[in-house]
């Protein structure tokens, strides 16, 4: 029998119908999977093999991934971007976009420790660049109150930059003198970074973090106001509400909130990282 003409067409149609019925009919088995926050970031060694042994290409593609999707995202979802930034720092620690964006979005978004790791790697790799040690010193002083280490980082920055050597040294000495970190100065610093940013998403992301600092400024101002009015140190943040200094606590646009420790308000850091995410 020859497969031509009507018989052929009929058989073809029947075969295709069978295929279409099957393709439409089956449903994939429902897999019970634990909910994992964020998405998968492949580890650096595996990426090297996937990009045919080219770690620089892998670093560039992953940085593009952060820059095109990352910006405005903050809080728990940020964990994914933290891991992306850290992978890029392993692949090419010299990558300028990576350390710069990691510093501005991660450190101010609550992931201080990984941001510090990335800045340390960038300081080592970019042995000529004064910005990574400057950011490192700033973050160590502001978030960690590691005044001595902060001064060392600032002096490293001073050694790298003949033009602004004295400025960096002066800031370093200020850090060492344990002058209380000023969130207003930090806010001005972040605003300058936002105004410099060419990228809209980065600007949005920085705006969220500036809003976060504004909340901290509100809290610290309220504390100063309280201590002046009642001539006693603030014991519990709730006193601000009960005694009418504040109408309501500011909300943190990043979603992490603030802490009151040792009689001082500070930014809360993201504590539990990895697969568990952050439990509220």
């Amino acid at each position, binding site marked *: 029998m020859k497969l031509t003409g009507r018989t052929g067409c009929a058989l073809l149609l029947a075969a295709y119908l069978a295929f279409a019925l099957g393709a439409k009919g089956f449903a994939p088995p429902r897999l019970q999977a634990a909910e994992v926050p964020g998405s998968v970031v492949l*580890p*650096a*060694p595996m990426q*090297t*093999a996937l990009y*045919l*042994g*080219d*770690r*620089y*290409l892998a670093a*560039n593609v992953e*940085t*593009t991934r952060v*820059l*095109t999707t990352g910006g405005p995202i903050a809080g728990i979802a940020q964990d994914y971007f933290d891991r992306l930034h850290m992978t890029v720092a*392993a*692949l090419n620690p*010299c990558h*300028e*976009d990576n350390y*710069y*964006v990691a510093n501005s979005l991660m450190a101010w978004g609550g992931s201080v420790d990984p941001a510090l790791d990335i800045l340390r790697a960038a300081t080592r790799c*970019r*042995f*000529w*660049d004064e*910005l990574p040690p400057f950011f490192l010193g700033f973050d160590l002083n502001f978030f960690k109150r590691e005044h001595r280490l902060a001064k060392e980082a600032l002096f490293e920055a001073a050694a790298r930059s003949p033009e602004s050597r004295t400025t960096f040294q002066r800031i370093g000495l200020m850090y060492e003198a344990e002058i209380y970190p000023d969130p207003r100065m930090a806010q001005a610093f972040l605003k300058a970074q936002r105004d410099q*940013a*060419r*990228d809209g998403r*980065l600007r949005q992301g920085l705006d969220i973090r500036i809003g976060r600092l504004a909340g901290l400024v509100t809290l610290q101002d309220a504390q100063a106001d309280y201590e002046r009015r009642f001539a006693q140190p603030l014991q519990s943040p709730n006193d601000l509400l009960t005694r009418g200094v504040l109408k309501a606590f500011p909300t943190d646009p990043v979603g992490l909130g603030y802490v009151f420790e040792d009689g001082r308000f500070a930014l809360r850091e993201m504590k539990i990282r990895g697969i568990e995410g952050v439990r509220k």
Partner: protein
Amino acid sequence: MNSLLADFRLAVLLIARSRLWLIAASLAGLLASIAWLSAQFSPRQPATVALDVGLSFIRLVVPVLAVLHIQELLAREVDRRQILTSLTYPRSRAVFLVARYAAVVAVAAGLTLLLAMVLAGVVGLAGGGYKQSTPVALGLPYALTIGSAVLDFAVVAAFATALAAVATTPNLVLLGGIGFMIAARSASTIVQLLEREHDLVKGAQWYQQGLQWVQWILPDLAALDVRPVALYGKLEMLPQAPWALVLMALGYISVLLILACMRFERRQFA
């Protein structure tokens, strides 16, 4: 010597006839657009990213093309029995093999030079509007980067030649050549990165010791990738003792070509 030169010329002509100009032009166009587009994604170092991605492109396409040329000039020739005519000329088989290898490397080097010049132009354009804190270096550091890339391609082509000398199916040359390139380029980087990823593998130290022998068999092509020198304009980022790298590559090429010639001289073409 004369027969070597004649064979070399013939092989270059054969490659040129396989639409080399069309391929070179389209690769250059593709390179320009990829480098320019990737620069648009970088907020602080557009020229560096354009150069970085462009170098990645060159380092990927040129060796693949070189392996394809080896496959065409050696393996397919055996497959189509043209080899029987090619080997009738009065000179040794080794001369024939080395001349064809040299022609492929010369074409690859010329193509790399062309693409490198296109890339330098695109990098200049892409980074022109923005003053980076760390500018790229398109002078001597760039020349060193391109030179070591050509050395890398020569090693890959030598491996493909050795495969072609023994292969009975032409596709083995392509698959084996690309596989060798990936393995040689990623081995040392993966071992180095595994050390840092403590939570990924237990006992990375053990892996590293276990993989020590690899460096006596595979050349470390990742070390031949000296692009940070050009990306950040710092000659200090060259590896220690660069002469050893050149020696490693040239030595490995010689080993492969000698092996290939030895096998090829005794090969039976039924």
